[in-house]
């Protein structure tokens, strides 16, 4: 799926632009230890966690984009995401809704493949 389609369909606010435009998978969790253990690469990660460690974890796991389903994102997290060229996106919806919409996009793509 194209990141620009996801941004449009979920009405996301772009805080940082990443370098990967085409994303294959998605993952939802707020516990970074579990993300480190399980998140797939080249994915969108949906979380409420906004501690700066999220950017390091995304880098480590080669996660392409982070959607934060909370209103406020600290400035230092945005700065770090820009440095690491990771998409940092804000959603007004909760993690369940955002995940559901992305799940549907991925399912539809599979059907059309």
């Amino acid at each position, binding site marked *: 799926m194209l990141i620009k389609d996801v941004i449009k369909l979920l009405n996301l606010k772009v805080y940082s632009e990443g370098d990967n435009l085409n994303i294959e998978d998605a993952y939802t969790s707020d*516990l*970074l*230890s579990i*993300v*480190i253990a399980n998140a797939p690469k080249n994915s969108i990660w949906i979380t409420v*966690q906004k*501690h*700066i*460690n*999220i950017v*390091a*974890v995304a880098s480590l796991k080669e996660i392409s984009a982070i959607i934060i389903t909370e209103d406020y994102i*600290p400035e230092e997290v945005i700065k770090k995401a820009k440095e690491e060229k990771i998409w940092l996106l804000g959603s007004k919806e909760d993690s369940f809704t955002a995940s559901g919409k992305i799940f549907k996009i991925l399912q539809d793509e599979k059907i059309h493949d």
Partner: protein
Amino acid sequence: MTDLHIHSTLSPCGSLEMSPKRIVERAKILGINFISITDHNAIKNSIPARNLSKKYGMGYLYGMEVQTEEEIHILTYFDNYSELLNVWNMVYEKLPDIENKPDYFGDQVILDEEENIVGFEEKLLLNSSKISLEDLCKIVQENNGIAIPAHIDSATYGIISQIGFVPHDSFFPFLEISCEHKEKKLIDELSYLKNRKFVSFSDAHYVNEIGKCYTIFELELPTIPELLMASKDLNKRKVTDIARRQT
């Protein structure tokens, strides 16, 4: 022997036997000479605990176990009640206004030195304050306190379980490992922690758990500046050992 992580009746998960009096008396019997009561986001049993500790000739630090918005448990300590109170005011103000359900979570009981009930905390304490780890560390430092991540090896509410790893630039003079874990094993698994100083405290919720594990410090006085020296091995202050009580 030092045990700086003990819950009282004020923590909903703490046993109703954990009055400041019982805690201090039990610690005295065990030969523990330096304690702190660290209730979840709460401080109202601190003054009786401190007064009783003084009576029994034990060292006491004003403490609180804060749950940050990342759901990390951070132990905070201060030499003075006014400093603890400043930090608690900020933590408590940002604690969601959800009423405790004693049948489900347990009672949150405030006691005096003689175990008389002074009141009940109505807000649910077992919850995250809307304060970030960074902001908490900042206000603790501004109030001359220290912050120690609790049970960092734990699968729940530990700094590693919640945010993946201990930020390398963080101000933590010590990291607490739980009674069940071994420092060496942890460093084998996470070599980036090898230059950190570790402590172990009981996290007691029941009387028989007090001093279950403890830390032995080389200190002149039971104070924050002394602990800070021990964290840097300065002026002969140091962490001598962390141990489990033999039962």
